[in-house]
C-alpha cells in the first residue's frame, strides 16, 4: 500500500501550483476583485483564466485521448481541483467537473464533437438546472416540463439555486418529459443554449454576498438533438453525474489555504504576552484542522484511486463530501474564534486579518453542507448503500 503520488504526479502538482500562483499573483488580480461573483473576480478575469487553463491542456488532463485529453487519470483531476481551490483560482467550471463525464458516457457523437472541445479549451461554461422550488433533495419530483413539438422540446418551468445562470453559455437541464410516468421514469436531460428566447435568470443574493439565481423558462425551444442519452432516462443519468460531482476534491485545497493563513497570523500576532501560536488552545485547534485535512486527503485519494482502478465509489464519495464540507465549517468557525473580535471584520476593512477570509468562509461554507446533495442525504446514502441498512 502506498499513499504517495508518483514522481510525475508530484511534478504535475508543482507545475500547476506554479501556474496558478503566477496567474493569481497580486499584479494580475489587482483591480479584478468582484464580490458579487461567487469566485470573487470579475467575469472577464474568470473567462480569461479558464481559457488560459484550457490552453495549457490542464482542464482535460484526465480525459481520454479520443476527446483531446491527456488520459492521465483521476489523480491528475484531483490535483487540478485541489490546486485551483488552494489558489482560489476560478478555473475549473461545472462543465469540467460535472458535465464532461456524463456527456462522454451518454452523449451522441455530434454532441461530443461540438461541446467537448469547447469545454476542454475553457471556451464555454455551463450552469446546472436541476433544483426547483419544489424539488430540492427530492429532485425526482421536479416539475419543469419539456414537451415535444416537432423537432424541438418546448420547456416551461422554474429552476432555483442555479449557480452562474447569469453568466453561463449553456445549461445542463433536467426536465419532465413524461408527466404520466412514475416520477423517476419521466425525466430527461438536455443541454439548453442560454441565449434562447424565454430564459430569464433573476438574481438571488446569497448571505456571502455573491449572486445566485433563480431561472424562469417560458416556452424555451430546444432542438431534440440536444437530448442527452435516452428520453425519460434522465434520472439515472443525473445520478451518475452526481456521483462525479460528489467526488469533489476542492474542499481540502480551500481548507489548506485557510489553515496557512491562520497559522501565519498566529505566528505574527501576540496575545497575553506570547504569540498566539504558543497558546496551547490555539495550537490544538490548528493541529486538529491539519489532522482533519490529512484525513480528508486520504478520503479523496481513496475515491480517486477507486476511480483509477475502474471501481465506482458510492458511499466513499459521500463520506468525502460530508468530511470536506463540514471541515470548512469547523475551520472558519474555529478561525474566527482564534481571531477574536478581529475575526468578524469584513474584507473591506484595512484591519481585517487574512483579508477577511474567515468571516467570508464562515458564511460561504454554509452552502457546502447543503449543495450537491445535502449531508443528510449523503448520510442516508452511506447507511443504505454503504452499510445495507433497511429503508
Amino acid at each position, binding site marked *: 500500500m502506498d499513499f504517495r503520488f508518483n514522481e510525475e504526479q508530484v511534478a504535475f502538482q508543482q507545475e500547476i501550483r506554479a501556474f496558478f500562483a503566477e496567474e493569481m499573483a497580486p499584479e494580475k488580480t489587482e483591480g479584478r476583485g468582484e464580490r458579487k461573483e461567487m469566485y470573487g473576480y470579475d467575469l472577464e478575469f474568470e473567462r480569461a483564466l479558464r481559457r488560459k487553463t484550457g490552453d495549457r491542456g490542464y482542464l482535460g488532463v484526465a480525459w481520454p485521448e479520443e476527446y483531446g485529453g491527456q488520459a492521465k487519470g483521476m489523480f491528475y483531476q484531483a490535483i487540478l481541483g485541489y490546486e485551483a481551490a488552494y489558489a482560489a483560482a476560478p478555473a475549473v467550471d461545472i462543465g469540467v467537473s460535472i458535465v464532461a463525464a456524463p456527456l462522454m458516457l451518454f452523449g451522441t457523437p455530434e454532441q461530443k464533437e461540438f461541446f467537448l472541445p469547447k469545454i476542454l479549451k475553457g471556451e464555454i461554461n455551463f450552469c446546472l438546472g436541476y433544483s426547483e422550488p419544489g424539488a430540492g433533495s427530492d429532485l425526482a419530483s421536479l416539475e419543469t416540463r419539456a414537451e415535444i413539438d416537432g423537432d424541438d422540446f418546448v420547456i416551461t418551468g422554474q429552476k432555483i439555486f442555479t449557480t452562474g445562470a447569469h453568466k453561463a453559455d449553456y445549461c445542463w437541464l433536467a426536465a419532465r418529459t413524461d408527466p404520466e410516468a412514475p416520477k423517476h421514469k419521466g425525466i430527461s436531460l438536455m443541454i439548453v443554449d442560454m441565449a434562447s428566447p424565454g430564459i430569464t435568470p433573476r438574481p438571488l443574493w446569497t448571505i456571502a454576498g455573491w449572486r445566485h439565481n433563480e431561472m424562469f423558462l417560458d416556452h424555451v425551444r430546444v432542438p431534440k438533438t440536444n437530448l442527452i442519452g435516452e428520453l425519460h432516462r434522465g434520472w439515472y443519468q443525473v445520478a451518475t453525474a452526481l456521483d462525479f460531482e460528489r467526488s469533489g476534491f476542492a474542499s481540502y485545497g480551500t481548507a489548506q489555504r485557510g489553515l496557512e493563513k491562520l497559522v501565519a497570523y498566529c505566528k505574527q500576532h501576540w496575545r497575553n504576552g506570547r504569540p498566539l501560536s504558543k497558546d496551547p488552545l490555539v495550537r490544538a485547534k490548528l493541529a486538529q484542522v491539519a489532522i482533519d485535512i490529512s484525513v480528508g486527503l486520504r478520503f479523496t485519494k481513496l475515491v480517486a484511486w477507486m476511480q483509477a482502478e475502474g471501481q465506482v465509489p458510492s458511499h466513499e464519495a459521500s463520506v468525502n463530501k460530508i468530511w470536506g464540507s463540514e471541515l470548512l465549517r469547523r475551520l472558519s468557525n474555529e478561525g474566527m474564534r482564534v481571531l477574536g473580535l478581529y475575526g468578524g471584520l469584513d474584507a473591506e476593512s484595512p484591519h481585517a486579518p487574512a483579508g477577511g477570509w474567515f468571516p467570508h468562509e464562515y458564511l460561504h461554507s454554509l452552502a457546502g453542507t447543503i449543495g450537491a446533495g445535502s449531508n443528510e442525504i449523503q448520510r442516508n446514502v452511506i447507511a443504505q448503500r454503504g452499510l445495507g441498512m*433497511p429503508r
Partner: protein
Amino acid sequence: MDLSFNTEQEQLRQDVRAFLAQECDRAVVRELEESELGYSPEMWKKMAGRGWLGLVFPEAHGGRGKGFMDLVVLMEEFGRCPCPCPYQTGVLQSGLALLELGSEAQKRDYLPRILGGDLRFSLCLTEPSASYDPWGVQVRGMTRGESWVLNGAKMFIQYAASADYYLVVARTRDNDDDPSDGLSLFLVDARSDGISRTPLVTIADDKQCEIIFDQVLVPRQNLVGPLHQAWPAVRKVMTLCTIAMCAEMAGGTQAALEYAVEYSKHRVQFGRPIGSFQAIQHYAANMLTDSDAARLSAYEAASLVDAGEPYEMVASQAKAVCSEAYQRVTATGHQILGGLGFYKELDMQLWYRRAKAMEQFFGDADYHRERVAQLMGL
C-alpha cells in the same frame, strides 16, 4: 499510489481471522480477561508457530521479515477479535527495542526465543509520572562494582506479572537542559531480588502492574545499547508501536461498527427494524466515517514506514484520529444497542473498554495534537 493490500496480506488476514474465530471467540475473550495471566499461553505458542510473533522481525533473528503493512493486517484482526495477548509489550515494544539497541549477542540470545513464544518480555517505560516523555523517567540506574543497581517505580506495565524479563528505561545521568540525555535501557531478570509487583485493575483487563525496583542488581553486560543515549531508539520504537496500536484500534472500530449495524437490522421496535430509523442510520454513517478515517490514517502511517519515509507526523495524526474515532464509535454503538448493551452479555463493551485504554496508551488525542503542532513548526 496503490491503496490495496497485496495477495499475501489478504491471505494473512484470512488466516488470522480464521485462527481467532477458532481459538479466541468472544466467550474465550471473556474468560481470558478474567484469568490471572490475561492471555492463553497455548494460543500464544500457536501464534508463534505460525510466524506471527516474528512477522516484522528480520529472518536472521527468527522473524519473517515482513513489512509494517503486514503487521497492520495482524493488528487489525487482533483489534476486531479483540484478542487479549501481550503482543504490544511483549513482542513489539520489547522486540523492536532489542532490535534497535541490542548487541549482536543480545539479539541472538533473546530475539528468537521471544519470537518463538518461549520468553516473555515487558517493556518498562512509564512511571508514576504517567508520561511518555523523557522527563517522566525517574527510575535510577547507578553503577556498583561490576553491576548496575536500579531503584524506583514503574507503572502501567502490561502483562508484567507473567514476564520473564523486563526492558527497563532508567536514568543514568542528569541533564537539566535535556531530559532525554541520560536515559539507558537495561535487561532485567523479572525474578531478581528487590523487584516487587502489584497488579493494577484496569478498565480493559490488560493485566497492568506497578513494579518497584529496590536495589535491584543488574549484571554489567545487561546494558542494552549506548549508555545515556537510549532515548532516540526508544522514541522510535514507541512511534512504531503507536502505529501498530492505531491499526489495532482501527480493527476494533470497524468491528464495533459492524456489530452495531447488524444489531440494528434485527432489533424491531414500532414494527420496523431500528436500523430503518434515520436517527440510527445517521449515527451509523458517522461511525463509518470515523472508522474509515481511523483505518486510512493507520494505513498511511504504516505505508510510510515500509517506504522508508518520515512517519512521525502521520503517526501522530493517526493516533489522534484513532483515539477519538474508536471512543466515539463504541459509545455511539452502545446508544444503538439500547439498554441491553449495558450488560456484559453483549460484545460492544469489549471494544468500548479497550477504546478508552488504547486512547491513553502512547498519549491521547490531545497529546498527539500537540505533537502535530510541534511538527508543523508552531
